[in-house]
Every structure is written in structure tokens, then in C-alpha cells.
């Protein structure tokens, strides 16, 4: 196997083989880096988050220096929010350059008494109730106040398209996914409308109404998305057909996960397997405790990216689901480079030679001390050259 193996198709094949439990030419490495990449390049967070061009430069530099196997956009966190919000309020994000972090208040703009209005017309409710709760001046604003925001929001969507072009044309890497719902319905309540405290209380205080609200979004957002997947999606430039994120499962028990997550997830998984495609789930926190839900998923169609769970425990618990993870901040941030490489080699030898395992950091890399640049570079260089003998026999 030669080192000339490059290009979107090559990297895509690595991921595809690993997720389908075929021995890959080498184990692919999936990036999971966000604010860290700005700090690694010496930029202030407030600058990178308020300048589209600098934002693109940071993402391009990151992928050119560190050789990963997919392009994972960081624009969800680095996206110039101040320009989009200009004139209507500050939003919930606070850039703290001293602490090198973005702080987000735990907020709530939807409450237990709002379900009926939400269920009647959730888009109108968002516009007429939630936006004024978030931005106190909203009802005093006029169309003229939002006119320029149309241009800024269009600039943001162009920014995403530019990044997509950079990924496939300049960097010759597949994008993470071809299509994706922004968030699963249940996550909207946690991330955007109720916050951590609000959502965790509502699933216990008003489980029926909460479930009705989740079901409404499922019908309005997920059903059209599932139909799109069923019709067939062009995945020639993407590693996965789709990708979803689990966040709120961390404060739910198994029964609640079955109520608020599983119907949506099962629907998407069925569409993906029906099209013989592969999908990715990022499970923040822990997921093995919910393994029973995934035992019947057809082998070779799903990869779950773990954080706090051990990859060794994961492959035992779910031998039908590919595991993404294992590269810990303990090694990347706090040990010599040669120890990092030895650890990653052990992971690959133990878990990756027959497929079913992909490397990724064990958390969203956000803080400077999450990784040393020299450690990450050493690991990326090693992984890019560690060809598997087992693949040549396939």
C-alpha cells in the first residue's frame, strides 16, 4: 500500500470499510476539533468568531497541517454570530478571550405553560413568543431592522458552501455527511428553547406534552429528511450519508430515551440501512448504558462516536456498531509524543485491524491544554502511514 493513496475517494473508502467491518487499508482518523484549532494557530477566539475569512483560514490551516480523513466543519461554533445578530441583541454566547472559551448562559425561552401554543403553530410561536423572550427589543423592531441581516445570513450560507468546496476540491477530503438535520427534535428543546435545567425538568413534569412537542417536530423536520434519504442522496463527496448528535440523553433514563429519542433515531436508521448507506452518531457523554436500543441495528451501517465510554467496552457491548473514538486528551495533552503514538498504535492493533473501529478524540477539543500540537501532529503522521497487513489479504 503506497503513500500516494489520497483523494476524496480514498479517504471515503477508509471510512466506509471501517464502518462496514471490512479491514480498511489503515484505520481512519476523524477530527473533533473546534476552538482548539484557533488557539493552536495563535488567534483569539473573539477574532475567529467574528470574521468569516479568518474562520476559513483557520479551518484550512488546521486540515493542511494535521492529516485527518474527513473534513469536519467547525462553523457550528465558529460562525460569526455577532454579525448575524447585530442590532437585535447579543444572544447567549459570551466570548471570553482571557479564559479562551465561549460561555453560554443556561437560558429558557419556552416553558411548561407554552405547549398548546407551540403545538398549534410552532413556527409562529418561535417568531412571536420565543424571539421576543430572547431579544427584548424584538417587538419594537421593523422590517428595515432585519433587511441587512438577510445579506449577512446569506453570507453565512455562502461561507458554508465555500468550506464545502475547500474540503473536497483543495483538501481532497470527504465531508462528514451529505445531508443532516440540524439537530434531533429533542435536542432543540434542550439546546435552544428550554436549556439544561428546563428540559431536564420538563421530561419529568410534563412527559406527555413534551413527547407531543417532540413528535410534532419529528413529523415536520425528520419525516421530510427521511424521505430525502429514502429517495437516494449523492454521497460521492461525503463519508457518511448523515450524522446526528446526542446531547440530552445524558440526563435521561432508558425509558425516557425510548420515548424522546428512539422513534426518531429508528426512523432515520431504517432509511439509511434501506439505502445500504452508513451513518454517524456523535454521543456526547456516555452511551453504552443505552446499548440495548442498538443491538438489532444491522451490522455495518452505523458508527457511534463516543466520549467518556471506553472503546474496549463499546466493541464488546455493541459488536454490530462501529466505534469512533479512543484518542484521549490525557495522551494528546499531557504525555510525550512517543507515548501518544504508542497508545494509538495499541488501539489500532487491538480494535481496528478487522474494521469496526475509527480513531477520534474523546471530547470536543476546545481548550488549549486538550492537546499539544506536536502530539497531534505525531499521531496524525503515524496514523496516515500505518498500513494494515490485514487489508492486503481482503
Amino acid at each position, binding site marked *: 500500500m503506497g503513500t500516494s493513496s489520497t483523494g476524496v475517494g480514498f479517504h471515503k473508502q477508509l471510512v466506509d470499510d471501517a464502518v462496514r467491518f471490512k479491514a480498511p487499508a489503515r484505520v481512519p482518523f476523524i477530527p473533533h476539533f473546534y476552538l482548539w484549532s484557533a488557539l493552536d494557530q495563535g488567534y483569539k477566539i473573539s477574532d475567529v468568531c467574528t470574521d468569516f475569512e479568518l474562520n476559513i483560514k483557520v479551518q484550512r490551516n488546521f486540515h493542511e497541517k494535521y492529516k485527518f480523513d474527513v473534513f469536519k466543519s467547525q462553523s457550528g461554533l465558529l460562525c460569526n454570530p455577532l454579525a448575524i445578530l447585530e442590532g437585535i441583541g447579543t444572544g447567549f454566547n459570551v466570548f471570553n478571550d482571557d479564559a479562551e472559551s465561549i460561555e453560554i448562559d443556561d437560558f429558557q425561552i419556552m416553558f411548561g405553560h407554552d405547549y398548546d401554543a407551540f403545538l398549534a403553530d410552532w413556527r409562529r410561536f418561535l*417568531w412571536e413568543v420565543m424571539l421576543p423572550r430572547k431579544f427584548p427589543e424584538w*417587538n419594537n423592531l*421593523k422590517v428595515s431592522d432585519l433587511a441587512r441581516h438577510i445579506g449577512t445570513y446569506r453570507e453565512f450560507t455562502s461561507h458554508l458552501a465555500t468550506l464545502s468546496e475547500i474540503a473536497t476540491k483543495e483538501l481532497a477530503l470527504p465531508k462528514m455527511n451529505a445531508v443532516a438535520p440540524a439537530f434531533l427534535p429533542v435536542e432543540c428543546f434542550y439546546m435552544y*428553547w428550554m436549556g439544561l435545567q428546563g428540559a431536564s425538568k420538563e421530561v419529568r413534569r410534563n412527559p406527555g406534552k413534551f413527547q407531543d412537542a417532540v413528535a410534532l417536530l419529528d413529523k415536520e423536520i425528520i419525516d421530510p429528511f427521511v424521505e430525502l434519504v429514502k429517495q437516494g442522496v449523492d454521497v460521492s463527496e461525503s463519508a457518511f450519508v448523515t450524522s446526528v448528535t446526542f446531547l440530552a440523553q445524558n440526563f435521561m433514563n432508558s425509558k425516557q430515551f425510548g420515548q424522546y429519542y428512539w422513534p426518531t433515531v429508528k426512523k432515520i436508521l431504517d432509511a439509511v440501512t434501506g439505502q445500504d448507506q452508513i451513518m454517524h452518531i456523535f454521543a456526547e457523554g456516555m452511551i453504552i448504558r443505552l446499548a440495548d436500543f442498538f443491538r438489532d441495528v444491522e451490522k455495518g451501517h452505523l458508527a457511534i462516536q463516543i466520549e467518556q465510554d471506553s472503546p474496549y467496552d463499546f466493541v464488546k457491548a455493541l459488536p454490530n456498531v462501529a466505534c469512533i473514538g479512543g484518542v484521549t486528551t490525557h495522551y494528546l495533552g499531557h504525555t510525550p509524543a512517543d507515548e501518544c503514538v504508542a497508545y494509538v498504535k495499541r488501539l489500532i492493533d487491538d480494535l481496528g485491524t478487522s474494521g469496526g473501529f475509527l480513531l477520534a478524540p474523546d471530547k470536543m477539543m476546545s481548550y488549549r491544554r486538550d492537546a499539544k500540537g506536536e502530539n497531534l501532529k505525531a499521531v496524525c503522521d503515524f496514523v496516515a502511514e500505518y498500513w494494515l497487513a490485514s487489508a492486503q489479504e481482503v
Partner: protein
Amino acid sequence: MGSNVNMDQSLSDYDKAIEELSKLLDFLPDDPAARKLWLDGMADRYIKL
């Protein structure tokens, strides 16, 4: 950009605000449903940021 846009329309009324704002989307196809969807996407962004 349409000249018949009521720039003084308050944002407090969803239907009227969307109707006026959609007149500014001359880079999109002239399809009211598509324009409403685009503006809903922008409103989503306000919530998420």
C-alpha cells in the same frame, strides 16, 4: 430588491413580517413557500446563536 416593501412593518406579526421580508429575497426563486422556509431558517439562527 423590491420597491414596494413596507420597511416600517413591525416584526411582532409573523405573517405580515414574513410577507414583507420575503420581498427582499430576490436571489431566491419566486416561490412563497421557499422564501418563507429561508426566513424561518434565519429565525432559527437567531435562536441558536
